[in-house]
């Protein structure tokens, strides 16, 4: 347990060394609210979404959390490129502790990073419903760990930074666009039933809907029952954390990093 915590601590310390990146990514977030959010909300009909600006800001928090959690995969490539991997493998820590620690560390650090940004979005959105918000915060935690686990799993499976970068781009394009991060499920369903079907079973949809439900503001809530998305997030987290441990364990040795 102590060794696991050491791995988690190392990843969090590493993250805070990248002050430049943290500031730049915070500017990403603010620029998306100020530019896209503000302008696009002028374009959207109030019949489709009553208050698109607040709706988008809530979705943006989820998209930012997703992007931040993905970055642990890039760290793995940096380590492989600079030979840090061999050092990590030589430590008196089991492979399982290493990957579990990295998954938790990746999820925690993205959550720590997105925490203040969520604070900004809550300020923009308005008041919250405390109990529901705690549930949605828990879902955000699990989602963040799940995405980190997914990023680590894919990184060690393909072992090529170029392929990883582009695959993450495609996943980001599909997972985010086929979700309710930017538009309500009813509109996606009307636009194309196939898109609606995919969006219905998308972890980004689950967590975005739960986050909006957690704010308790009727103008942006499009979710009736929070139990199903919560179960979906738990399944996503469990799958990528535990499958990630097994795949990392098998693929971590033998080199072949590009």
């Amino acid at each position, binding site marked *: 347990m102590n060794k696991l915590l050491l791995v988690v601590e190392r990843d969090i310390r590493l993250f805070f060394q*990248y002050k*430049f*990146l943290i500031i*730049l*990514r915070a*500017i*990403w977030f603010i*620029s*998306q609210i100020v*530019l*896209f959010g*503000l*302008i*696009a909300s*002028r*374009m*959207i*009909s*109030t019949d*489709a*979404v009553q208050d*698109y600006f607040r709706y988008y800001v809530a979705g943006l928090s989820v998209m930012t959390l997703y992007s931040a959690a993905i*970055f642990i995969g*890039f*760290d793995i*490539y*940096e380590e492989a*490129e600079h030979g840090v991997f061999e050092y990590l493998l030589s430590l008196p820590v089991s492979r399982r502790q290493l990957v579990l620690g990295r998954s938790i560390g990746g999820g925690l650090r993205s959550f720590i990073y997105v925490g203040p940004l969520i604070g900004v979005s809550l300020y923009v959105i308005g008041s919250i419903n405390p109990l529901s918000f705690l549930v949605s915060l828990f879902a955000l935690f699990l989602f963040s760990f799940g995405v980190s686990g997914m990023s680590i799993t894919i990184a060690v499976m393909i072992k090529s*930074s*170029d*392929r990883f*970068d*582009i*695959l993450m*781009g*495609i996943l*980001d*394009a*599909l997972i985010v*666009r*086929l979700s309710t991060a*930017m*538009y309500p499920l009813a*509109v*996606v369903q*009307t*636009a*194309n039933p196939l*898109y609606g079907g995919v969006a219905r079973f998308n972890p980004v949809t689950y967590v975005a809907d739960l986050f909006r439900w957690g704010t308790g503001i009727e103008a942006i809530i499009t979710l009736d029952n929070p139990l199903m998305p919560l179960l979906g997030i738990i399944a996503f987290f469990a799958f990528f954390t535990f499958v990630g441990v097994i795949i990392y364990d098998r693929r971590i040795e033998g080199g072949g990093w590009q």
Partner: protein
Amino acid sequence: MKAILHLLEHDFRNFFRYKWWLAGLISMNLADLFIMAIVYNRMISDEVTQQIRSYFNFFAPGLAVTGLFASAFMIGREINMERRREVHHYMLSLPMTRMELAIGRVLSGGLRGMVYMLPLLLTCFLFLGFPTIWQLLLILAVLFLLAVGISGLSIAIAVSTSSLEKFITARGLVYYTLFFCSSVFYPLSLIQQLGRDGKFPMMLVTMAEVNPLSNASDMIRYFLLGYPPFHFTSIINVLVFSAIFTFGATFAYMKIIERK
């Protein structure tokens, strides 16, 4: 001149080696058009519908510009990787002047952007109709200038950042600022209206007006859809952007790449 041609060949061979990249980039761009634009089409207000008629049609020219940006930016990623893996020592040892090396890299980034963008532009023509031959030549010329400018911008960032993460983060910041403060995703009139209402800083409104991405997208829209009005000053804006970043990147590449 011959050295520049060799560099172009080198960079084009590299470009086509990244089949994954190209497939991925195309998927991302098409996802924007065939998912995001189709869904937004269902959400736009009546007022905006009167102006642009269909969001899908409005966004299609913006998609060609988005694809051009992403592919012209790829050269920066390669140069950043060369710097991290110290391949640039090999590039510096080649029998060509630093100026030829720098110009060749900027030019090849722009040309690769054009090659990648052509199928997206064709997709746009298929949905919106074809321009006249003179309009087509003007569109290609403006997009080429834009591609060279973007390539220069990406090289300037690539030689100034020491890690892949920093490069990717800086790329994201440039992307969000340039794209979201332009008419690629929404009509310029909407941004100007927000400025007039005092809800958007006039500095950002001006930035959106002179943004080369706005100018290029709106020029294609004018030729294919008949709106918004086209001014020749927009070509000058693209020319200025291209000149600044081509010379800036050439200078930065020559200076920074030789540093230890």
